[in-house]
């Protein structure tokens, strides 16, 4: 059944053309000599140079990166704990509420999350700045981490963990030396997801950021409102490049790990048979 009919080939070609052509045009025009964004004036890399001289962009990029790093680390720790509680926590008071609070932020409109967090920060008197962005990002991305990690926790063989406990491990030791290595790939992809979500977020950051803590998306948004500019094209190209390299590298690594696991399994079977 798995053969490429002309219908499937057409829908794939048109579909991927639709998904990729707008981004490819941005990449091409980032190397345009002309400031006019619709006229091709020859190849040039000058907009990249201008971008790296733009202090406002560099400052915003630094803030974004710091926020992303700190919030994604907090989100990873909290999210992994949350996943463990969801899957292995057993019964406790307010369990339904807890799982509701893990899943609800995933589908909550960003304007509502942003508004509610801002009103919270104001009512407890916390000044808006990097701290508030970190708290906001850690909160919504921990839920994504929880979902990713819990799907891994559900699928793994619990008897390995029980064996460790029978052999005298404390629950914490069992978690550190048995569970954590098994769920590590999910924890890492959860962390990457949290990092990406934080680096991309515009709406929630617009609500909770103070005047001194402009993030890159906020800066991009305010300059994009005025129209297309070659500097933004250059910035977009850099970001698209980073994501592409990261995603391709990640998929190659998982592919290699899967191959290695398969080979080890075959060797083990040969040794035992």
């Amino acid at each position, binding site marked *: 059944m798995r053969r490429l009919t002309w219908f499937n080939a057409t829908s794939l070609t048109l579909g991927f053309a639709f998904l990729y052509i*707008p981004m490819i045009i941005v990449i091409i025009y980032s190397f345009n000599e002309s400031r006019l964004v619709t006229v091709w004036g020859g190849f040039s890399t000058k907009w990249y140079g201008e971008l790296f001289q733009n202090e406002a962009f560099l400052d915003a990029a630094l803030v974004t990166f710091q926020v992303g790093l700190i919030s994604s680390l907090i989100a990873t720790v909290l999210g992994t704990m949350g996943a463990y509680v969801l899957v292995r926590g057993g019964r406790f008071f307010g369990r339904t509420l*807890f799982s509701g609070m893990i899943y609800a932020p995933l589908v909550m409109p960003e*304007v*509502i999350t942003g*508004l509610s967090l801002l009103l919270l920060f104001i009512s407890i008197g916390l000044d808006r700045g990097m701290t508030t962005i970190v708290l906001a990002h850690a909160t919504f991305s921990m839920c994504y981490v929880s979902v990713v990690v819990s799907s891994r926790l559900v699928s793994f063989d619990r008897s390995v963990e029980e064996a460790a406990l029978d052999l005298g491990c404390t629950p914490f030791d069992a978690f550190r030396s048995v569970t954590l290595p098994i769920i590590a790939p999910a924890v890492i992809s959860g962390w990457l997801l949290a990092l990406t979500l934080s680096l991309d977020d515009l709406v929630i950051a617009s609500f909770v950021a103070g005047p001194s803590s402009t993030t890159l998306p906020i800066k991009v948004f305010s300059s994009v409102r005025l129209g*297309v500019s070659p500097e933004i094209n250059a910035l977009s190209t850099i970001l698209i490049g980073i994501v592409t390299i990261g995603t391709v590298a990640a998929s190659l690594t998982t592919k290699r790990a899967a191959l290695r696991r398969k080979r080890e399994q075959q060797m083990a079977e040969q040794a035992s048979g």
Partner: protein
Amino acid sequence: MNWRRIALISVPYFWLLGLFLVPFFIVLKISLSDIALAIPPYTPTLELSEGWSGLRDLVAQLDFENFAFLADDDLYWKSYLSSVQIAFISTFICLLIGFPIAYGMANAPTEWQPTLMLLVILPFWTSFLIRVYSLIGLLSQEGMINQFLMWIGIINEPLMILNTNWAVYIGIVYTYCPFMILPIYATLIKLDASLLEAAEDLGCSRTEAFWRITIPLSKAGIIAGCFLVFIPALGEFVIPSLLGGSGTLMIGKVLFEEFFANRDWPVASAVAVILLLILIIPIVMYQRNEQKMMEADT
């Protein structure tokens, strides 16, 4: 119950309680307050020093005035209605475009699958803002699409696409398409091909087999994909404000402007409360569907 377990549960629990649930009650409370020329710009505020009597005074001053205002003013209910309409139509177009892509992927040669999967996930990891931005240059009056259409001679004057609802539809479909493709692909790839062969052996035509077997068996994926597009599209802010025009009414944009431009926090909160009430139905339906899918898997 040992203290480690209590600590493990309570850290994420109280984090979410404090930073997710409590803020909603604050929004609810402010939606019942009145606007004031003060910092913060609403009244009444809670005086913790007065204890219970302070709380009683506070509750006595709350009213549904803002909700009455929302019901009275055309702008708000028109925005809700047009948000629902825009989200609904875009979801449908997404399904029309996303399903053939997912179908093509699931039926492509096996060794292509990881690459095709990567091609769908890549836009998903790429910044949302940048993907919306990439459409501006394409849709503007002197943009690529107009240049192309004039070059092949279909039109003589550039079409006005950017800053209209058309651009908002294109924007939502373009950015949310991967959310539609992935769940449908996940159900189609699990579909047992021998069922289709059996149907053909029993005299079904290919088209008939598609409608009677493929579509019903991928229903869960289609439903999941539709909600994953519809729910965020309904509260969308970035797309209507970058691609839409002054006539584009979407509630996410109205809420943002009410808060930042008009500084009317109580009305912005009331807008958020209503939006949440509208969203509860699709969110519950989505979670039911997810549960059904999980049960079907086990």
